[in-house]
């Protein structure tokens, strides 16, 4: 017989809810944060998610701390040190110019992860605004906005990112963020609209309206805060896409250029010499995979923790 892996957890949660009901019956005060505390407890029980968050934090610490403590200059050229295989002094070895790759990967990570986070924030802001307006206003506005979204849905982001960069004419941190955001916010907007619409049907929203709450109070006090769980999950779902997009663009030579480096441009650098020194492309690629996998498992853990009953398609 095949068991739903979540059955047990659901039962556990039900038990927890029953206990809560009992405390309520006994007249004890209900903690306001019970939902989040509940979620945190479930998240902590999910071994994969905990490992993922540890891996994620480890990567952040690596890119933040290593450039401070490493004694090398990331751009100094010294051909005597070229192509040193990984040693204690150079944990990831050196490249063709004798530059330390442990340091350069950390610096590249700062740019890649920085673009990743900035892009994710931009996606969230645009997606939430668009989705919330559509869902909240409803009617023909909703219809028009959604039809427009339908038109854009499924379009590949890479060509549009490339054109956007061509419009700017220069490639830097912020133009990369805009380019990677411009065709990536559609899913977030759709999901947000769905959230707002289903929340709108709740009795507490009707009650708020009934006692005369203004629309902005309903939206900002009752609707948006309740989408926070979904938003947090989506942050970790969108982050991998942006990081990967940056890597693809830079790998194709259309993104971050020397002397600046990102994981994508480091990989491109390694690709030109993969036959003689394959480790140079492996290192930044593994860093990318590390970040993507940990973000993905965090998102998965959060989704289960925040809503143990539903299982959204990944």
């Amino acid at each position: 017989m095949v068991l739903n892996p979540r059955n047990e957890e659901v039962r556990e949660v039900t038990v927890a809810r029953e206990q809560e009901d009992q405390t309520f019956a006994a007249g004890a005060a209900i903690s306001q944060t019970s939902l989040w505390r509940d979620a945190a407890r479930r998240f902590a029980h999910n071994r994969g998610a905990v490992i993922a968050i540890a891996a994620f934090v480890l990567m952040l610490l690596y890119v933040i701390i290593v450039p401070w403590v490493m004694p090398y200059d990331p751009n100094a050229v010294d051909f005597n040190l070229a192509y040193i295989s990984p040693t204690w002094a150079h944990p990831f070895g050196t490249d063709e110019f004798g530059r330390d790759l442990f340091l350069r990967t950390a610096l590249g990570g700062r740019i890649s992860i920085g673009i990743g986070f900035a892009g994710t924030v931009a996606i969230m802001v645009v997606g939430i605004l668009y989705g919330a307006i559509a869902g909240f206003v409803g009617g023909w506005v909703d219809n028009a906005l959604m039809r427009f979204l339908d038109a854009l849905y499924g379009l590949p982001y890479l060509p549009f990112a490339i054109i956007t960069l061509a419009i700017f004419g220069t490639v830097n941190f912020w133009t990369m963020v805009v380019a990677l955001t411009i065709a990536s916010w559609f899913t977030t907007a759709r999901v947000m609209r769905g959230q707002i619409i289903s929340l709108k049907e709740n009795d507490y929203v009707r009650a708020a309206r009934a006692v005369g709450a203004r629309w902005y109070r309903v939206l900002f006090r009752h609707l948006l805060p309740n989408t926070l769980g979904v938003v947090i999950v989506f942050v970790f779902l969108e982050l991998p896409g942006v990081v990967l997009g940056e890597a693809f663009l830079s790998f194709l030579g259309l993104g971050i250029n020397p002397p600046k480096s990102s994981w994508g441009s480091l990989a491109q650098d390694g690709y030109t010499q993969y036959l003689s020194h394959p480790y140079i492309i492996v290192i930044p690629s593994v860093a990318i995979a590390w970040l993507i996998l940990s973000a993905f498992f965090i998102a998965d853990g959060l989704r289960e923790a925040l809503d143990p009953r539903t299982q959204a398609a990944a």
Partner: protein
Amino acid sequence: MLKFVVRRVLWTIPIILLVIFMTFWMMRAIKGSPFRKSERAVPAAVLANLNRKFGLDKPWYVQYGKYVENVATFDLGPSLVLRNQDVNDIVKQHFPVSAQLGGLAMLLAIVVGVPLGILSALRANRVTDYIAMLFANLGFAVPSFLVATLLIYEFAAQLRWFPTNGWTSADTKVLPVITLSLGPLTYFARIVRGQMLETLQQDYVRTAKAKGLRWKRIVVVHVLRNSLIPAVTAAGPLLGFLVTGSFIVENIFAIPGIGRYYVTSVQGRDYSTVMGITVLLAILIIVANMIVDILYGFLDPRTRDART
């Protein structure tokens, strides 16, 4: 049903017009005049002539109308950089290669990914499932340029089983197709697994079990059918995957396809080619989405009213 199909088909027309319009505006935002950026100074009279030749002296709505008209008649205009070559020629030359690459990758992804997802769901939370899902997650997270490089390094450079690049004989196609299929493959595996697990929880499966049907029959008749239908909708995002992936794969394996040519055109500022290819890819995806929706409407009648 006929009404649904007609409505869905008609609906793609404004969508395509809108996407062409957006691409058109984006290209105008880059261009200004494509000839101003050339290295040599162009005399004013020549510039005016060039502008007239490419219709750039007309107001934007005339240019847009002309462009839509051209796209509708399958004419993507002349290349701005390659003299005497039309974007049509470029597409005709490079698109079949990309289509073959994408088609083969999709085929491999379905043939391997779907059974992997089924197997994984039927063995949920056991060793088989863990191994399959580890593979699926790695395939999703490891960038395709690393996969391609490692494949070339091992099977082309070391073992010499396959050539390192090109797109001619069958053996040149093995490594690129494997690389490109990895993303869609793992996506299929995860979608199918998720759907299967959900279906296995349904009441009708329990009923089937209760009335004593054999497990094999339940899986084949009740579970598979209801799980694989939703997987059809995955085809939409998958096409996007393939387009993105082909940019990388075609560049690494030096395959003369659309993705490789696109990157070359951007670098060479050949904007009419860039625009033509972008519009073509967009139309392709919009039409594919339409086909998926209609197919889904046939397979699952409940969705007909919900979708336009």
